[in-house]
């Protein structure tokens, strides 16, 4: 009987000690969350561009511009040149960042156009358009006569066919838009090919 009583006292004591110890252990360590710490990160902006420069190279406008960078050593993704004819706007060239000029063989003969350019980065970032270039008047189609034959009008270049820029010192005659218009050229208008200098 005495032994049972001792065992009971010991059991209660151990249980109590464990319970108390557990509670103390719980109080001995605390956890805490951090302060809510706001932090800011800023994004860049595509810089404004100087007005493009446009002039005729033969019968085709050639547009040049001064490249920009997002930050020193960080180029933009590319450039888009837009032709403006009155209220009409159309993309004349889309080029990589390493290119700072292009030729617009799709300009309509006889029209007067200006050009603006903006830089792009990534899939969606676009800078603001530059100021317009000086106006460029595209020569009207030449009309030739040959003896007493009917006049022969040379057609204007296709309005949608881009032209590969040729080296100024040796243009290939077969590539001249004014001498060999191709009816099929307009169907491949999406395949703009710009040669870098």
């Amino acid at each position, binding site marked *: 009987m005495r032994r049972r009583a001792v065992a009971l006292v010991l059991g209660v004591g151990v249980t109590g000690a464990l319970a108390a110890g557990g509670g103390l252990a*719980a*109080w001995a360590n605390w956890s805490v969350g951090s*302060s*809510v710490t706001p932090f800011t990160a800023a*994004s860049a902006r595509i810089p404004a561009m100087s007005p493009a420069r446009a002039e005729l190279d033969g019968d085709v406008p050639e547009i040049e511009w001064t490249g920009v960078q997002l930050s020193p050593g*960080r180029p933009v993704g590319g450039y888009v040149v837009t032709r403006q004819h009155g209220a009409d706007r159309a993309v004349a060239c889309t080029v990589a960042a390493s290119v700072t000029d292009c030729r617009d063989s799709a300009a309509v003969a006889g029209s007067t156009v200006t050009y603006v350019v903006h830089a792009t980065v990534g899939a969606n970032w676009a800078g603001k358009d530059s100021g317009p270039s000086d106006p460029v008047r595209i020569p009207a189609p030449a009309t030739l006569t040959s003896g007493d034959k009917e006049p022969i009008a040379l057609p204007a270049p296709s309005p949608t066919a881009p032209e590969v820029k040729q080296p100024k010192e040796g243009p290939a005659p077969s590539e001249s838009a004014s001498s060999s218009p191709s009816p099929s050229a307009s169907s491949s208008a999406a395949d703009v090919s710009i040669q870098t200098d």
Partner: protein
Amino acid sequence: MHRWRRLAAAVVILGATTLASGGPAAGQVLVFTTARGPTHGFTISGTAVTGLYPGATRRIDLTFSNPYLTPIRVRSVAGRLISTSKRGCRSTPANLEVRGYSGRLPATVLPRSRQHAGHLDVHMPNSVSDACQNATFTVQFTGEATEVGR
């Protein structure tokens, strides 16, 4: 000192609450709320990030600060984008991803001291909205720490 007094007040309030509910379990996250205002605790701060652009990844080096009189062990750190400064630039991962913490955890921070920690990366996807040019993104750091056992 003022902060510590607030902490003491918070602990008293917390103690009253936990006593009524039977006491906290060890390691439980305690939220200190006082009549004065929101939660406070150790702080996580980061280096400034500027010049984000589509495709860019920037590292935010973090520092832990322990305002308490005992060492703490930081067990978790996370960051999330909570707002931007531009209306059309939504605070979504499509515009800015806040990546996971890189660094050793748990990290012990001595009492009333600051310690350089790991880093978080932020990445601006190529598809970021045009409206996010020249925007300011607010990233919130959160973490949990426990008192180092005596």
